[in-house]
């Protein structure tokens, strides 16, 4: 009986509270914070519907006359399962497509494809990498996708002189290890940061940018390169932690600063609730994040707030290359995702080497080192450290609850 009474009382109490909130709701003036900051709706950058592809791009099919031993194998090493599996799936389906196209066109050269799962975890990556390097038939690798696992395994590749091209790892420090076998198939964060800064102050017209970074290797590194690029436009910074849920103190500082753009250097797990809470407090400016935020999960978790979001990414929107998008969809039964085209292009570089007779580890490594040709997404030519000489960074925005490309930025 008493318990029942408590329940009723509690319910009544709650109702009272809600009514209070509700009634007040009605009386509230329309949007007290609406006068602060620039309006995101004022900026309208149209979505791209197509991108130009290099005319003489090297394609996996080659000339169809390639001859190679039946044992010739390429491998993908990276996440196939785990929390970040989707990124890995995007990549190895791109690789699979390149190899399928090559093998269909070259009856005398059937390249085999092997996958090794790291779950994206640096602690689990050394096993699969060691295993792959011990298989004599594997002469080149596309991977590893993430910066942490790449850092943990670079030495293993170096010891056996096996070439590997990462289609996704962006930490600038990776090419500072003196490795001769590591090649990066996209721009790094030292390129992305300044490009993001230019994008905000230029195309987005931001005058006052507030930068918030998390405590990850990636967030700190990118936060630094971005704030360097922002210069005077940077009016404040704050740091948050991975796993944080409540950003009210940071938001209070941002609202006081009168910022018209907020850059979040980190991943979507924190970026999404941060953006949502920011908008709930009346923030009307733009919200910009790097490739760590560019995921459908961001939209799912930030809800409606994500309408103010823009992303930067050193990845090319493969979905806008019709031939690639169509073939990819036929193979994978889904649209190309982030880094699918990077996986495809990196594989093409290796396949072109095999077709040119570079069919052992040493000569294939040499081939990549001296490679200088267009891929479907961009030009591939590396410097002596393994960085691309002309990387591209793209801007993306949210439109109708989807992330769509708006063009190259930072040029």
């Amino acid at each position, binding site marked *: 009986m008493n318990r029942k009474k408590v329940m009723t009382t509690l319910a009544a*109490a*709650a109702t009272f509270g809600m009514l209070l909130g509700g009634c007040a709701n009605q009386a509230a003036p329309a949007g007290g914070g609406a006068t602060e900051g620039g309006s995101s709706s004022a900026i309208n950058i149209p979505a791209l519907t197509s991108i130009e592809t290099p005319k003489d791009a090297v394609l996996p099919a080659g000339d169809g006359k390639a001859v190679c031993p039946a044992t010739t194998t390429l491998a993908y090493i990276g996440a196939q399962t785990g929390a970040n599996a989707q990124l890995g799936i995007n990549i190895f389906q791109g690789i699979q497509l390149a190899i399928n196209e090559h093998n269909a066109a070259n009856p005398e050269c059937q390249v085999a494809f092997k996958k090794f799962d790291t779950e994206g975890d640096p602690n689990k990556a050394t096993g699969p990498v060691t295993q792959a390097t011990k298989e004599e038939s594997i002469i080149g690798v596309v991977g590893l996708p993430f910066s942490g696992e790449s850092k943990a395994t670079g030495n293993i590749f170096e010891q056996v002189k096996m070439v590997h091209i990462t289609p996704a790892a962006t930490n600038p420090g990776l090419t500072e290890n003196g490795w001769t076998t590591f090649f990066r198939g996209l721009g790094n964060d030292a390129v992305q940061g300044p490009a993001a800064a230019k994008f905000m102050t230029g195309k987005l017209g931001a005058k006052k940018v507030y930068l918030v970074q998390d405590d990850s290797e990636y967030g700190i590194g990118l936060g630094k390169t971005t704030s360097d690029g922002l210069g005077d436009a940077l009016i404040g910074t704050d740091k948050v932690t991975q*796993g944080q849920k409540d950003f009210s103190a940071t938001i209070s500082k941002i609202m006081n600063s009168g910022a018209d753009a907020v850059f979040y250097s980190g991943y979507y797990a924190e970026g999404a609730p941060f953006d949502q809470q920011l908008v709930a407090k009346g923030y009307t400016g733009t919200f910009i994040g790097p490739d760590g935020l560019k995921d459908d999960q961001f939209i799912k978790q930030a809800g409606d707030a994500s309408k103010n979001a823009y992303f930067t990414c050193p990845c090319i929107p493969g979905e806008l290359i019709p031939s690639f998008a169509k073939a990819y969809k036929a193979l994978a039964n889904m649209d190309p995702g982030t880094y699918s085209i990077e996986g495809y292009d990196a594989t093409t570089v290796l396949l072109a080497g095999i077709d040119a007779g570079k069919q052992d580890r040493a000569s294939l490594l040499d081939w990549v080192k001296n490679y200088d040709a267009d891929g479907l997404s961009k030009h591939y030519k590396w410097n002596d450290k393994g960085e691309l000489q002309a990387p591209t960074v793209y801007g993306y925005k949210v439109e109708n609850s989807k992330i769509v490309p708006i063009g190259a930025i930072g040029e």
Partner: protein
Amino acid sequence: MIPTILMAAPVANDWITLDFVSLGQNFWSATFDGLTFGSIYALVALGYTLVYGVLNLINFAHSEVFIMGCYAVFFTLSFLGFGPSAPNLGIGQIVVNLLLALLAAIVASALTAFLLERLAYKPLRKRNAPRLVFLITAIGASFTIQYLIFLWRGPVPEQALTMFQTKPIFEVFGTIIYSDQILIVTAAVIMMVVTERFISKSRTGRGIRAVAQDPDTATLMGVNKEKIIITTFVIGGILAGAAALFYVMKIPSGVVYNGGFILGIKAFAAAVLGGIGNVRGALLGGLLLGLIGNYGQILLGNSQWTDVVAFLVLVLVLLFRPEGILGTSLGRSKA
């Protein structure tokens, strides 16, 4: 911003600086946000405190009692058609929907607490297991529930739901107060007052206090100890369910399998800060912890300090008042 340099240890290439200017600018908004979160901590803290008072058991699985409430809120509101956009409904309808969600959360949390008690703790009590075994069981139960949810829903948080468009209501000291802040603080305080009165005035409440004070004598005096224990768990669950609704209101993307863990630890800390086993202490501790964390992170310049500051204060308080600010007695304090 002119940071006053007060040297401590270098963090990477930064120095710890005390930013009083920023604290001054953000004082009131930090206060209101701190109170809002503090209220949620306090509601969860009550669950720890009541069970501790009665059983001398730190029920570490209480954070999972809470997260089950969050899932109930999520599923109820999804079912009622709420989505990422603020619903286009009248105030009355929103209130009805939120009450339904509250009811679902209360039922889910109370049921979890009930089952937890029956399946995990009662068998141990029957066999007169030592205290340490209860503690280990509590931790084990916490992880078991977490990973059952993980198997069921996976590692990704649920889709964010907006319950209503938060609106600025009035300004105090140049700071805008939002509808959700008023709602959460008011409702939480009312619930805590009701709980407090229930424990000090009702017959069952008297039973709870009697068992907390001396279980054996209480039993001899005709108090049904088992019934009291179950009631205590269920009350804790009800309050956790209410906290779940408010939490999802503030943090829509917080519905994830391990989402209760850190909040549970903070609520537990709040209970200890106020004096574990003490109902008013839980309220005080929760609000204080919310405030201290917010002031601390603004004073020290970034959010990475929130927990450090909060727990540092906890340690300092316990150094001087080992029983917490208001002392630890559920049975003795106030009749």
